[in-house]
């Protein structure tokens, strides 16, 4: 397949405006400003079937259409570049190697929703990407692609880069807004939804980096072209897959939505890291989603196929684990992450994440009890659906799925105070 989103990343000096323009950059912006009204642009995106690449897969054009057409306050676009989901590193590639593509996407989307400013909220750890974007934004302003009266169209839009301070929760859209406003990154209750009252109470749309970089191509080539990629009608377009774990060639790969998981692992990724250690499990969408066993891996990587398989595409962070992986240790590490990153605002997530971590640590340390597996599932179920934001679900779902699908490994830890898997059986002190 022709590479679309990543077509520039291997070019020399791909992050410069000159290289981007030489490859036809900012032509989509020019075309949209000349030929399309904001509503026509929104309709085109709607028709393309583009769905949000940040994790939830909400149709982008529909999201845009929630924005008021005649707002009393300024409208804003936020580009969510706080890529923090474990196992996910696609936005980083885009920002470091093709920042102008993202900026063009930001500007087009801002035009569609009548935003007067686009805030790029970038993960604090992405220092290099931040520097690249700072330069790119300065170049875009200098060339008149951003700021006042863009390309003589009479439309103005500011680009503002904001560096986060390293909290996972600030990737959640409402926490991101609270953080951007200068407050502690706490998610907000919905309603009101961001399109009604978002950043500083103004109508706001939040899109992921990868979502936005699709927009210039749809403008350039049309919704029909986009519909021809992937699995129409609901899983269309190109997709970046972040492959990591026990595979020969981990990395970011571009392929249409609906790529078979086995094809990604065994063909694109070059197969399992060591031929004598077969596949045990795959987390298909970043650490927040339910795990798939090897037997469940005959599945296509798109929103609906994975939902049917009881998991999610999420941020397409595909983590591959071979048979030497201790599933108790793996989920203990994931649970530690969520206990550490839970913002502490609402009760079930604040208390439950820490509790799950403690129980898992105890099992892993050889002090597990027979009741602990049921207890973990009960805690997970008590968290799920009862929290302000999706972090609670993100912490609960993997725990529940690990315990359900690999219960025998947990039981082995409890019974033998030892681990069954791995290159050797690890014996515990206590």
């Amino acid at each position, binding site marked *: 397949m022709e590479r679309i989103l990543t077509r520039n990343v291997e070019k020399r000096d791909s992050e410069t405006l000159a290289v981007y323009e030489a490859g036809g950059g900012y032509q989509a912006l020019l075309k949209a400003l000349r030929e399309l009204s904001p509503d026509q642009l929104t309709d085109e995106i709607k028709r393309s079937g583009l769905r949000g690449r940040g994790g939830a897969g909400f149709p982008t054009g529909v999201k845009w259409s929630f924005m008021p057409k005649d707002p009393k306050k300024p409208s804003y676009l936020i580009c969510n570049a706080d890529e923090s989901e474990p196992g996910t590193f696609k936005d980083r590639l885009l920002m470091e190697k093709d920042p102008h593509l993202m900026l063009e996407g930001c500007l087009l989307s801002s035009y569609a929703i009548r935003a007067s400013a686009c805030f790029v909220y970038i993960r604090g750890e992405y220092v290099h990407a931040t520097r690249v974007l700072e330069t790119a934004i300065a170049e875009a302003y200098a060339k008149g692609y951003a700021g006042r009266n863009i390309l003589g169209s009479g439309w103005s839009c500011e680009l503002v880069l904001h560096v986060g301070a390293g*909290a996972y929760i600030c990737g959640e859209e409402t926490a991101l807004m609270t953080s951007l406003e200068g407050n*502690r990154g706490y998610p907000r*209750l919905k309603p009101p939804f961001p399109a009604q009252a978002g950043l500083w109470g103004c109508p706001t749309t939040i899109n992921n980096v990868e979502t936005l970089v699709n927009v210039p191509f749809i403008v350039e080539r049309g919704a029909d072209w986009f519909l021809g990629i992937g699995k129409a009608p609901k899983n269309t377009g190109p997709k970046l897959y972040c492959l990591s774990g026990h595979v020969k060639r981990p990395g970011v790969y571009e392929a249409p939505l609906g790529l078979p998981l086995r094809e990604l692992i065994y063909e694109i990724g070059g197969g399992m890291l060591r031929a004598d250690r077969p596949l045990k499990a795959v987390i298909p969408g970043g650490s927040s989603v339910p795990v798939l066993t090897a037997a469940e891996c005959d599945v296509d990587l798109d929103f609906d196929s994975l939902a049917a398989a009881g998991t999610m595409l999420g941020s397409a962070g595909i983590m591959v684990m071979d048979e030497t992986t201790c599933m108790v240790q793996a989920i203990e590490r994931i649970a530690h992450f969520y*206990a*550490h*990153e*839970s*913002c*502490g*605002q*609402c*009760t*079930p997530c*604040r*208390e*439950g*994440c*820490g*509790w799950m971590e*403690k*129980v898992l640590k*105890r099992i892993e340390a050889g002090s597990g*009890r027979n009741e602990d597996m049921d*207890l973990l599932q*009960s805690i997970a179920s*008590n968290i799920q*659906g*009862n*929290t*302000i934001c999706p972090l609670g679900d993100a912490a609960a779902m993997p725990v529940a799925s690990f315990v359900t699908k690999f219960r025998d490994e947990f039981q082995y830890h409890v019974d033998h105070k030892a681990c069954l898997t791995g290159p050797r059986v690890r014996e515990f002190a206590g």
Partner: protein
Amino acid sequence: MPKLTIDGKEVEAKAGNTVLQAALAQGLEIPHYCYHPGLSIAGNCRMCLVEMEKAPKLVISCATEVADGMAIATDSERVRTARAAMMEFFLINHPLDCPICDQAGECRLQDYAVEHGTGVSRFLEPKLTLSKAVDLGPHVMLDQERCIQCSRCIRFCDEVTRTGELGFFQRGDHTVIGTVPGKPLQNAYSGNVVDLCPVGALTLKEFRFQTRVWYLKNTPSVCAGCARGCNVIVGVGQQQVLMTTEGQLDDRIKRVVPRFNEAVNGHWICDEGRLSYERLHAAPRLDRPQAPRGTRVEWEDAVTRAATLLRNAAPGAVGAILSPRLTSEDLYAWSSLFAALGAVRIGAQTIVRGEDDGILLRADKGANSAGVRWILGPDATTPGVVSAIARGEVTTLLVVGDPLDPADTFSLDAAARSRVKTVIFVGAFLSGAAEAASVLLPSAAWSEEEGTLVNFEGRIQRVLRCHLPRGEARPGWKIASEVAAACGAGLPHWASAEEVLRSMAATVKEYRGLDLQAVSLLGVGAPGRAA
């Protein structure tokens, strides 16, 4: 008015109300921690989860607006399970130190644990240990382990006082409330965060470890600290009666907390009012009748002395200075005495400190300044009497001291003292003009007798008797009528403050037609009663 069904029962709710408010209005309590009617919605405790028809997940009733045709279940299996789960989450890291916790007995964790918890803990892990005594400011201590992170205290400081001292620090289950270095919780209303705290995390330094709350006798009353007249509940200690065989009643005020009155103070009171009772305890009380230099005299003798001094004064030589915190009943009784004596120069003090702060505090500290104007007239001011003293016209002075703050009792400066030959002192404290008095009659302090006060908006409100007058002290109206009788003036024979009120209702225009029932515990602010 939207109609919705709650647990199968159709109810009408105010548009814009939340499901929780609609339920509370029906007398149905959906358990909640973070919701407070005086603060913004936080939605963080997740205790008020209910089932809403057609919603895939449970919704928090505190943040769900009522809508026509909505169907809510507050007691379904799913809701009960979720509630029990929340209770479990609240308690896993909670120290369960109820036996030494000041909140015990009025703790929402205790109440809801009994009502909605499972009664057993599945938590085997070590509990988090945090600091048990963080000094947040002059009045408030924090126990981090007991805190349930409901954010009520933070929202209070952000939204009501707009001082923003409090915030969350750390993340996840390590989240704690705190202040930033050098910026303690120090605002004029800081004590309210203690009342707001649904658990024992925030305690008032002045109340902590003083008594178990179930030993308190709680009486509704009105604060006499300023002209606002905030509605309060006064908690008087009763502990000694139960704990010892001595039979000695503790009978001191242990705390004062706000009592909701939308028309006056809403949900809050200021720290000054909350702690005004400390001055009642700290100052030396005048608790038995005295002649000069502390000589003890009997009541009858003291009354006779006072009456003789008043009667023997030359016509027009009697002056009187009264505290603006006296109840209207006291003021009315004294003014009746003065009317009978004739030609008494009457002045009420003006106590002004600070400024109106736009929240509750008033610069006018006279809790009954408006009552003074209604009963004694607009010309009854202290400077009038003082200048009459300076001119040598007034040589016999009756001082009725402050019933709340000894420092506010009128005192004579050296010049006035040289002019005034005789001082008759009536008061609760040995302060101010008491030292110059020829006879001293002990009167009841603010919390020791009932009556009415008129706030700056002309609202008539009731002060109630929270405990018995100290020592031999008697209500001011009673002392006035006894002195009047000894002077040979025929005042009505009042047996209670309520009877004084009845007399007053017949003669004072603004009080016309009122009785205690009409005043009620929330006061009356009838039109035409403007202050």
